């Protein structure tokens, strides 16, 4: 069967975004334009590589014009896969039909504390203070802790600018949000009351270093916070290298103690039994079905419930799979591990470099094996395959300023927590703003507007990446050129994630070579 598909002149096949790779001893084909994933036999994989090698990109009409005269035979399954919907040309929303921002505001990050009890060397927020001491034009430092009245105004803004009948969510962040404990408690009470009065559902999440957790706070979180994210980098030597307290002392033991208090509180409140209904889990129906239930062994149920451990890896622990393994051995079974973020001119020794990619790939591959074996849930591998991302997420993965915002302790709205305090990005005070307006610069920063992304197989999974990362990489000059190292790391991670999916998901269609 050679080149039948498309000979009617209607269907044009596009291989522009077809990506061939190996993961977990599998030969995989991912069609970036349609999001389809195919496992190939070894022989067909080689034939596909040979088929795609001379073209690299572009469209083709069946066997016409290939390699000059179509002398290459179609690889196995081409026509069948085309019939199944693969190899469409990518398409992008135009400015007039862009779905971005159509739904209004749905979630707010409350930076309730521009202060932290730690001073982590790699913190994007300048040891949690967001540069508040040095803001130009400020005669005195801005408030470090958000007053409850400001948080209430932020919730009023959120609830008033989301469509009727909609669930909204609020994340307590900082700095260290536990330093603003009274604000956290008061905001939860206020939010519950206001949301109920408006017929809405409100969900709270909290991201903490865990050091200031005690039994009382842990029980409050277990009862009121749908997802708690505790930052632990892994092994003690990894964690304490860069996550130091204000006196330069280690923090691993306190962070772990906090996580354990949460685990115990969740166990006592029974929240762990409701793991499948926590905000995070319920928000990933496809992932829960395809990864968690299939991969986690029945004899080892989830223990952590709505508790997630979030670590950061740097040049100092490129073997971060060992940190994931360490956390798993401690009983933490829901883990995320993130690459450290640095600016383009950052010379820090912990900075990640392109030369680190082989080691990073190896760590992701080893973590993928752990997930496939059912030993943990790894955030980045929880791809939603049964229910793909909605259009706004497909074409712009970052929701900064497009449904998501961040409010600082003064009550100022920013597109996201990383834009907090950055010049030119303040959208106004939540107590004074008349409504929520999408920022045009962010609305236009879609995959279709980014040439790098238009050529990339991962575009529908990545959505063009983080707006702040692109803005920082450009030297604060633009949003349309992603950080190339972030792209390379993201693609390595996605290959591992797709490999996990191929391992734990049954095939929808299988065919022999014809």
């Amino acid at each position: 069967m050679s080149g039948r598909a498309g000979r009617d002149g209607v269907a044009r096949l596009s291989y522009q975004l077809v990506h061939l790779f190996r993961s977990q001893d599998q030969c995989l084909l991912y069609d970036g334009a349609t999001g389809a994933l195919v496992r190939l036999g070894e022989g067909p994989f080689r034939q596909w590589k040979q088929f795609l090698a001379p073209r690299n990109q572009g469209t083709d009409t069946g066997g016409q014009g290939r390699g000059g005269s179509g002398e290459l035979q179609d690889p196995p399954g081409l026509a069948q896969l085309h019939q199944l919907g693969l190899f469409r040309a990518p398409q992008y929303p135009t400015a007039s039909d862009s779905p971005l921002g159509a739904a209004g505001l749905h979630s707010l990050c409350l930076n309730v504390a521009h202060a932290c009890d730690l001073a982590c060397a790699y913190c994007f927020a300048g040891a949690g203070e967001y540069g508040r001491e040095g803001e130009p034009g400020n005669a005195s430092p801005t408030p470090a802790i958000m007053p409850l009245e400001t948080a209430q105004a932020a919730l009023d803004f959120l609830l008033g600018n989301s469509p009727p009948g909609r669930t909204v969510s609020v994340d307590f962040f900082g700095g260290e949000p536990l330093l603003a404990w009274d604000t956290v408690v008061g905001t939860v009470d206020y939010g519950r009351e206001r949301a109920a009065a408006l017929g809405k559902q409100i969900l709270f999440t909290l991201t903490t270093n865990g050091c200031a957790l005690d039994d009382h706070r842990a029980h409050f979180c277990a009862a009121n916070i749908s997802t708690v994210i505790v930052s632990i980098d892994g092994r003690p030597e990894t964690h304490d290298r860069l996550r130091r307290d204000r006196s330069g002392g280690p923090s691993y033991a306190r962070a772990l103690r906090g996580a354990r208090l949460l685990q115990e509180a969740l166990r006592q409140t029974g929240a762990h039994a409701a793991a499948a209904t926590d905000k995070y889990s319920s928000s990933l129906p496809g992932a829960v079905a395809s990864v968690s239930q299939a991969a986690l062994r029945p004899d080892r149920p989830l223990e952590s419930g709505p508790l997630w451990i979030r670590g950061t890896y740097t040049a100092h622990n490129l073997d971060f799979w060992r940190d994931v393994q360490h956390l798993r051995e401690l009983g933490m079974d829901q883990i995320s591990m993130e690459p450290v973020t640095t600016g383009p001119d950052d010379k820090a020794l912990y900075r990640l470099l392109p030369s680190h990619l082989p080691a990073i790939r190896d760590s992701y591959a080893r973590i993928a094996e752990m997930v496939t074996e059912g030993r943990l849930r790894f955030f980045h591998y929880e791809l939603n395959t049964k229910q793909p991302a909605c259009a706004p997420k497909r074409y712009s993965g970052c929701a900064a300023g497009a449904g998501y915002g961040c409010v600082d302790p003064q009550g100022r709205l920013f597109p996201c927590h990383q834009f907090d305090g950055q010049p030119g990005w303040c959208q106004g005070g939540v107590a004074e703003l008349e409504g929520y307006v999408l920022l045009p610069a962010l609305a236009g920063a879609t995959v279709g507007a980014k040439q790098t992304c238009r050529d990339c197989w991962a575009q529908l999974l990545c959505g063009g990446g983080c707006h702040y990362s692109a803005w920082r990489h450009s030297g604060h000059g633009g949003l349309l050129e992603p950080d190339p190292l972030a792209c390379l790391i993201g693609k390595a991670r996605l290959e591992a994630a797709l490999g996990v999916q191929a391992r734990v998901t049954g095939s929808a269609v299988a065919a022999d070579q014809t």
Partner: protein
Amino acid sequence: MSEAKPKSSSPAFELIIRPVAAEIPAGADCSACSASCQSACKTSCTVGNQPCPAEPAETE
């Protein structure tokens, strides 16, 4: 699929994830979305991890 032969131990291909729809919804699919991107954002900038549950809000 008429051209597919009975599955053997070494198939030429297995479709694992089906293609997404070609059309681009203009936002209506977001109207019932309870997705919160912020926790996803803080641990990821990957759309595949950013949820779209499309579940109606629970009213009390």
